[in-house]
C-alpha cells in the first residue's frame, strides 16, 4: 500500500540529536553580568592577553571544522586585518596559552592559525558588517596605519562619514613603511585595507597635516577628529658621531627599503636595538648584500621582545647577536668606520618590566663597521599639531579617562600617537576603542556593547589524544630563495591544510566551561580517576575576584569539609575525560564567548 502519511521533519528520530549534519541549539543565554566577563578573563588566557580580545578558541575551532571563512570573520570582527596579523602580530596571546603552561607542552600556534583562516577562506566569501544608518556626522581620521584603519572601520559601520588623511603615498602606516615585504606581502595588505575603505571611507593620500592642512581647519570642518599619526620620531642616544653618514635610524632605514630604495650599507653592519625593527633592519641588510650583520643588545637574547622563531630566522639568514653591550659613540672621519662599545652586566628591572644592562667600567672595545643602524624605538611627535594640548609627565598627550578626549574638545587619540610605540594589534584595539568613544560622544548614548554568549554543548568537542600532538612548524623558504631577486619573497609560506587542522586540534578550547551539577552528582569520583591534571577538586570554598568571578578553589582532602566537587577551570585542559565517564551525566559543557551586540534605543 502506498504510504500516505506525511512525516514532519520534527518526527524524525534523530531530529534532536547532534550529528555532524545538524546541530540543535537549545538555549542561548546572553549576559552582561560582570561575573561572566570575569569568567572569560580568568579562564581564557589568550583572549585576555589579546589587546583586541579576539575570540581565539572560537576561530581555531572553525578551522578544525574547516569553516575558514567564518574563522576569518571571527577575527575580522575585532581585529580588522586577520591576514596581516596572521603574519606579523606580536602574539601576546601565545605566551599566555594554557598549552604552554608547565608540563602541558608548547603553546598553540595561534598566530599561524589566524593566517590559515586568511589563506584558506573561500574565494569571494561574505564579509559581515553590522551597519548602522547614516548619522550625518563627519569624522576625520589622521593617519592610515593600524590604529587609523581600526578607527575608520568602526566609525564607518556606525554610519558616520569618515575622511582619512595620510601623509605618505600609500595607506597602511607602519604596516607598509615599517614592516618589510618579506614578512608582509603588499597585495594582501592592500586587500585588507580595501575592505575597510569600501565602507565609504574617503582617503586623502599625500596630505601631511601641519604642512598641507592645519589640524584646526580639520577640526572646524568635522564633528570629531581622531589623531592616529603613529610614532615616527626616532629616539636618539645623543652620543658622538650619531650624525655621521652611514648612521641610520631603524625607521628611516626601513622606510627607505620599503619604498624600494637600496641604501648604501657596505659589508659590515652594526644594528643596535632589540625589537622587531632591529630584526627587520638586520634581515634587510642581509638582503642588501651585507656580509656580516651584528645585532647589539643591552641585555641578552632571553630578554628580547621578539619571539624565538624570529630570533631563529635572523640567525638562519646569517645575522649574529652580541649581547651585553652598550654603544658609546660612532667613530669615523667623513663616514662611519666603527663604533666604541662597553660591555654590560645584567642589572635590575625597570618599572616597565624590562631587564637593564649596566655598563662595566673600563670595558671599552672598538668594532669596525661600514654602517650603524640605531633601531632603539621611536615616539610620537605632536609638534605638527600647532595646538597647545595638555601633556603627561612622560611627554605624551593627556587624555580624559571618561571620554578618551584630549584637552581639546572633539579631538581624540588612537594608537602609538597616544602612548608611544607598541604593536599592531594594540593599535587596532586602541583605534576601535577611540571610534566607540567618538560614537558615544556624537550620538550621546552607547550603541554597541560587549555581551557574553552562553551555549550548551552536547559533546566535548575534543579528544584526549589531541593533547599529545606536537606544535606544527611553519614552513619557510630556503636561504637562496629568500635572497633571490630583490629579496622580498615572503619567507613564511604558511601551514598546509593538514598540518593546520592538526594544529587546530591542539587548542584546548578554553571557552568551554565544564561544570559539575551538584544536584545530580552522586560523588562516585569516577571523574577524579580519569583526570589527567589536578583539575577536579574537593572544594572547601572558593576565592572570588572583585567582579565576583571565581579566582581559585580552596581544596580539601577531608570529605566532611567538602562543599562540592568542582572543576577548576584554570587547571582543566578540556580533554573531556570526566564528561565521557560520568555515569549520571551531571557534567555540563557550556561554550562561553564574548561578542558585540547593538544596544537598542
Amino acid at each position, binding site marked *: 500500500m502506498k504510504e500516505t502519511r506525511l512525516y514532519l521533519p520534527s518526527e524524525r528520530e534523530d531530529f534532536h540529536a547532534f550529528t555532524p549534519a545538524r546541530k540543535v541549539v537549545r538555549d542561548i543565554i546572553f549576559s552582561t553580568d560582570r561575573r561572566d566577563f570575569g569568567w572569560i578573563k580568568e579562564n581564557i588566557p589568550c583572549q585576555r592577553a589579546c589587546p583586541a580580545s579576539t575570540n581565539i578558541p572560537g576561530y581555531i575551532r572553525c578551522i578544525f571544522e574547516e569553516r575558514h571563512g567564518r574563522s576569518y570573520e571571527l577575527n575580522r570582527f575585532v581585529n580588522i586585518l586577520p591576514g596581516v596579523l596572521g603574519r606579523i602580530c606580536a602574539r601576546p596571546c601565545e605566551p599566555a596559552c594554557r598549552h604552554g603552561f*608547565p608540563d602541558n607542552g608548547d603553546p598553540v600556534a595561534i598566530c599561524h592559525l589566524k593566517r590559515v583562516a586568511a589563506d584558506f577562506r573561500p574565494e569571494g566569501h561574505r564579509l559581515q558588517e553590522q551597519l548602522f544608518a547614516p548619522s550625518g556626522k563627519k569624522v576625520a581620521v589622521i593617519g592610515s596605519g593600524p590604529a587609523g584603519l581600526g578607527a575608520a572601520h568602526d566609525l564607518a559601520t556606525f554610519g558616520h562619514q569618515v575622511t582619512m588623511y595620510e601623509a605618505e603615498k600609500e595607506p597602511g602606516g607602519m604596516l607598509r613603511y615599517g614592516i618589510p615585504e618579506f614578512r608582509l606581502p603588499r597585495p594582501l595588505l592592500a586587500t585588507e585595507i580595501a575592505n575597510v575603505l569600501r565602507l565609504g571611507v574617503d582617503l586623502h593620500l599625500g596630505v601631511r597635516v601641519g604642512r598641507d592642512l592645519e589640524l584646526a581647519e580639520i577640526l572646524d570642518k568635522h564633528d570629531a577628529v581622531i589623531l592616529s599619526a603613529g610614532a615616527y620620531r626616532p629616539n636618539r642616544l645623543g652620543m658622538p658621531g650619531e650624525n655621521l653618514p652611514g648612521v641610520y635610524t631603524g625607521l628611516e632605514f626601513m622606510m627607505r627599503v620599503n619604498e624600494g630604495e637600496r641604501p648604501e650599507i657596505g659589508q659590515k653592519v652594526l644594528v643596535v636595538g632589540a625589537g622587531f625593527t632591529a630584526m627587520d633592519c638586520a634581515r634587510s641588510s642581509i638582503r642588501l648584500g651585507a*656580509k*656580516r650583520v651584528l645585532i647589539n643588545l643591552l641585555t*641578552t*637574547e*632571553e630578554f628580547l621582545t621578539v619571539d624565538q622563531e624570529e630570533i*631563529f630566522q635572523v*640567525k*638562519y639568514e*646569517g645575522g649574529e647577536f652580541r*649581547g*651585553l653591550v652598550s654603544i658609546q659613540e660612532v667613530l669615523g672621519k667623513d663616514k662611519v668606520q666603527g663604533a666604541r662599545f662597553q*660591555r654590560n*652586566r*645584567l642589572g635590575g628591572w625597570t618599572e616597565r618590566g624590562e631587564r637593564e644592562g649596566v655598563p*662595566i667600567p*673600563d*670595558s*671599552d*672595545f672598538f668594532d669596525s663597521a661600514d654602517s650603524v643602524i640605531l633601531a632603539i624605538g621611536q615616539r610620537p611627535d605632536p609638534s605638527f599639531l600647532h595646538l597647545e594640548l595638555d601633556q603627561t609627565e612622560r611627554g605624551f598627550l593627556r587624555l580624559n579617562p571618561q571620554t578618551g578626549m584630549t584637552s581639546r574638545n572633539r579631538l581624540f587619540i588612537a594608537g602609538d600617537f597616544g602612548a608611544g610605540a607598541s604593536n599592531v594589534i594594540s593599535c587596532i584595539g586602541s583605534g576601535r576603542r577611540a571610534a566607540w568613544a567618538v560614537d558615544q560622544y556624537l550620538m550621546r548614548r552607547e550603541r554597541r556593547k560587549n555581551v557574553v554568549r552562553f551555549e550548551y554543548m552536547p559533546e566535548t568537542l575534543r579528544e584526549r589524544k589531541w593533547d599529545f600532538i606536537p606544535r606544527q612548524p611553519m614552513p619557510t623558504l*630556503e*636561504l*637562496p630563495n629568500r635572497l633571490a631577486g630583490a629579496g622580498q619573497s615572503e619567507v613564511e609560506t604558511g601551514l598546509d591544510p593538514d598540518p593546520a587542522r592538526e594544529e587546530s586540534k591542539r587548542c584546548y578550547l578554553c571557552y568551554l566551561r565544564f561544570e559539575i551539577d551538584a544536584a545530580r552528582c552522586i560523588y562516585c569520583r569516577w571523574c577524579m580517576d580519569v583526570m589527567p591534571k589536578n583539575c577536579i577538586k574537593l572544594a572547601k570554598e572558593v576565592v572570588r575576584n572583585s567582579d565576583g568571578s571565581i579566582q581559585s578553589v580552596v581544596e580539601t582532602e577531608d570529605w566532611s569539609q567538602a562543599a562540592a566537587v568542582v572543576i577548576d577551570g584554570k587547571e582543566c585542559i578540556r580533554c573531556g575525560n570526566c564528561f565521557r565517564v560520568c555515569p549520571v551525566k551531571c557534567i555540563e559543557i557550556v561554550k562561553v564567548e564574548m561578542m558585540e551586540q547593538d544596544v537598542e534605543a
Partner: protein
Amino acid sequence: MAEPLHFVIVGNGPAGNEAAAALRGQDPKARITIISAAATHYLRPEKLAAFLVQPRHRLKDLYIHPYPWYEEQRIQLRLNQTVNRIAPEQKYVYLNHKERVRYDRLLLVTGARPRVPERLASLSSLLTRFATGADALLLKRGIAQVKHMTMLGGDCIALELAQALLPRGVRLTFILDEYRFWPLEFDEGVKKRLADSLEKKGIEVVRDDLAVSVEQAGDELLVKTRGGKEVKTDRACLSSGMVPAVEFLASAGIDTQLGVLVDDHLQTSRPDIWAAGECAQVYYSELKDYRCSTGSVNAEQQGRLVARNMLGAKEMVKLPEPGRVTIAGEHFTTYGWKGFSLDEKD
C-alpha cells in the same frame, strides 16, 4: 646534630667530577649527588679521538673513575636522568621523569655541545657529532668505511678528528667561515696562515664559505656551500664550536647569555647555585670580555675551585692560560685551549 649538606651536581664531565672529588675531600660528611643526562659516566674527552681509530680500545678504557670509586667516595651517581627545571626558591631540581630532588648547594656543570648552525638545523640527523662517548661509539662503528670527511667549520673537534684520521689516510675537507676558527683569535693574517698550514697537511680547505645544505646522495652525502661549491663526502661533521647547554635555566631566573653568567667566584645570579667549566661564562677584566672556558684541563681546574667556594671560600677564577696549536710547523695561540699539534711529535 645538623643534617649534612646536600650538594647536587648537574653534569658528569671533568668539572663536575673534579668538584665532587674535591667536595668529598674537604667535607667527609656531605651528601653528594651527580645527576647526568648521559648514559655513560665520565670519560676523558681528549682520548675520544684515539678511541675512535684504535679498534681494540673500549669505552671502559676512557673512564677516569671506575664505578666502584663513586661507591667508595659515597657519591651518588645518577645516570640517564635529565634535569628539566630548577626552582631556586624551594631549592629543588625537577627531573624529566617528574622526580624532584632537594639541594642545599647546586652546581651546574652541564658543559657544552656542538653548535648546530641555524641553517643546518633541519638537517641535523644527517650530521655527525663528536663530543661525547655516545657520539664516539656511533662514529666508531662505521669508521672503517669512511674515506672522506667534511668539517663544517673549524674547531677543536675538527682538529682532534684530523689528528686521528689523517694518519689513517682519510681525506679531509675543512669548510672555513670568514670570521671564526674557534678557539683562535681570528684576523685576516691568522685566517690565511691557518688555511695554508692545513693545506700543507694535505687537507682540502674551502675558504671564506659556509655549508648551506647537506643532502643524502646514495651512500654519500653532498655538502653544498653558499659559494656554490659541492663536496661529496662520507661524513659531514659539526665543527662550528660548542654552545653551552643552558636553555633549561631561563625559567628558573638564572641569568644566562652564551653560558650561565657567573661572578668572579663562579656563583650564578641565584643564591646557592654555582656553575663551572664550559657552561660558565665569566667576565675577565684583562680581556674586557666574557668567556666560557674550553677543554677538560680548564674545566677540572674550575671544578676544584668551585668546590672550595661552595664550602665557603671566596677564591677568584683566573683567566685560562693561552694554549698553542701547531699545524705544519706554524704556531697559533688559542683562547686557553690546551696545547695541540697536528704534526708528528715535535
